[in-house]
């Protein structure tokens, strides 16, 4: 049996695959954040809280209204997205144009409030959320057992990433948005309702986070604290990828998943910290991230 630094090749393959699966999850999560920062210049620290709300929403829909996973995939992100749009309208609008630091602090505060309230009502241990029966089980790939649900996550992630990248970079709507961020007055002069566009975009970014939350509900515990652990990592992904670039975040998400996977094999204790090491190195070599545009 061939080994790479003491780890059998088969085991290494399975770890890389698992890494890719995790990476797709990171990519999905960072997508919303990348849109919000890249296009709106808001450092949305509340992203983790919205992710949690998506999962919580799915659980609430099941508990109280008997609505299952499949409809929840659409309903929960919609509700959370609307909530996000509301927040943008009432609070974020007031600090547009100010130093992005204030956006960061405001959303950080929001995150604390949302998580705190959820925690006081639902406790921290979390609630069980069952996997939809159509996706249970898995396939034996020979070198590892691949759960169907994880394959589904990869599929959705790749689809959404491609769709989002396409819309922002290749369609007219996307170009309006990018123009609106660069020069809102000029774009508004063309008759495009810029404030509405911005609100919608924030809502979309938030909705994407919530969708990631619904997808996470069957595999990670649904608890008010689930977002706070992930938020820093997702931020790092977006920063490494380059804060203006959707493509950068997607690529970094996948790459980070693989690198983390490898770290888990050779130096598992460091797997939560390796993202920061990469971030520090990247920022020192390429100040705006891998694909970012310098401000």
């Amino acid at each position, binding site marked *: 049996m061939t080994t790479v630094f003491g780890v059998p090749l088969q085991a290494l393959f399975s770890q890389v695959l698992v890494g890719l699966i995790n990476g797709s999850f990171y990519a999905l999560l960072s997508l919303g954040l990348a849109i919000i920062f890249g296009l709106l210049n808001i*450092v949305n620290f509340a992203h983790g809280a919205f992710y949690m709300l998506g999962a919580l929403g799915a659980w609430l829909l099941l508990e109280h209204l008997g609505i299952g996973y499949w409809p929840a995939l659409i309903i929960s992100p919609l509700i959370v997205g609307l909530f996000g749009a509301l927040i943008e309208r009432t*609070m974020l609008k*007031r*600090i547009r144009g100010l130093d*992005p*630091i*204030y956006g*960061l*602090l*405001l959303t*950080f*505060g*929001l*995150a*604390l*409030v*949302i*998580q*705190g*309230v959820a*925690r*006081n009502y639902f406790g921290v241990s979390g609630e069980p959320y069952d996997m939809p029966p159509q996706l249970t089980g898995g396939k034996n790939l020979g070198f590892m057992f691949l759960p169907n649900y994880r394959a589904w996550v990869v599929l959705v992630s790749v689809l959404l990433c491609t769709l989002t990248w396409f819309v922002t970079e290749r369609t007219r709507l996307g170009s309006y948005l990018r123009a609106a961020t660069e020069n809102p007055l000029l774009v508004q002069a063309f008759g495009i309702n810029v404030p509405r566009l911005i609100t919608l975009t924030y809502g979309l970014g938030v909705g994407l986070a919530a969708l990631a939350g619904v997808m996470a509900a069957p595999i990670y515990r649904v608890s008010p604290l689930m977002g706070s652990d992930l938020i*820093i990592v997702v*931020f*790092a992904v977006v*920063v490494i990828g380059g*804060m203006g670039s959707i493509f950068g975040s997607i690529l970094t998400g996948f790459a980070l998943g693989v690198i983390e996977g490898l770290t888990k094999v050779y130096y598992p*204790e*460091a797997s*939560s*910290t390796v993202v*920061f*090491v990469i*971030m*520090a190195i990247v*920022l*020192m070599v390429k*100040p*705006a*991230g891998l694909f970012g545009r310098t*401000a």
Partner: protein
Amino acid sequence: MTARVEAETKAAARGLSPARNNEVRSLRVPIAILIGICLVAPFVIYPVFLMKMLCWALFACAFNLLLGYVGLLSFGHALFFGAAGYLTAYAAQTWGFPFELALLTGMVTAAVLGLLVGWLAIRRQGIYFAMITLALAQMFYFFCLRAPFTGGEDGIQGVPRGKLLGLVSLEGNLTLYWVVLAIFLFGFFFIVRVIHSPFGQVLKAVRENEPRAVSLGYRADQYKLIAFVLSAALSGLAGGMKAIVFQLASLTDVYWTTSGEVILMVLLGGLGTVFGPVVGAVVIVCVESFLAQLGGWVTVVQGGLFVVCVLAFRRGIIGELSRLLHRPL
């Protein structure tokens, strides 16, 4: 040379211009009020609680030097606060260093780390600067988690308070309070001096318009680095003091949430004001302790405070007060 130019030259040689001199003079009354409160307080309020406020106030002032006056938002200041805490605790406990030497060890460690982190991070601007400091701080957290000397999540416990100058025992809360107050005032006045010196003027110029400062011949990066190291060293002093007061150094001091707390204190108190960070620290420590009885609602209130501050209260308490009174505070 006219008398006026002579006077100005003399003043400049002393390091303080007349205009700056006036500004420091106008702070005399608030400073006197501050000292007055600090002298009376321990007889009315639990001294350990006051010492906690003083440690955090010094930390906030040091952070404000960087954020309010140089305009650099660092997300990793917990690194200096916590590292100094660990080194002071370890020095006092395992190496048996006397009180002053242990504090000095912590402060020097923080300054060295500040030099390192600053040198790495200064080249970047704005949010990227913040993210690099965060990344480095998290890496340091990981190091602290695994290094045996830090005691992992138990932390370093049972740190001896020692004696002041080998003579006066610091076990008593009141005695220690006077010492902590003296150190805090030293740090505070040092920062006031730095802010109102020509060096401080250059820092503010860099904050307002870096390219222009550079075009005037100032090496902005060097100034920023020096300010960073000063800020780190004073944060370290605060952290070391806290370790001695509570006789404990733990992982939470190096975690990013501690960095978040000091940002909130400075924001609430008033960015770029002299007394803002002190007031901010006092308020936040009080709120936390007051609401500790409410258990889980503390973080909600903290979050709410952040939101309210940013939306309606951006100048902070002292900032608003300063505007009302039409004098710099």
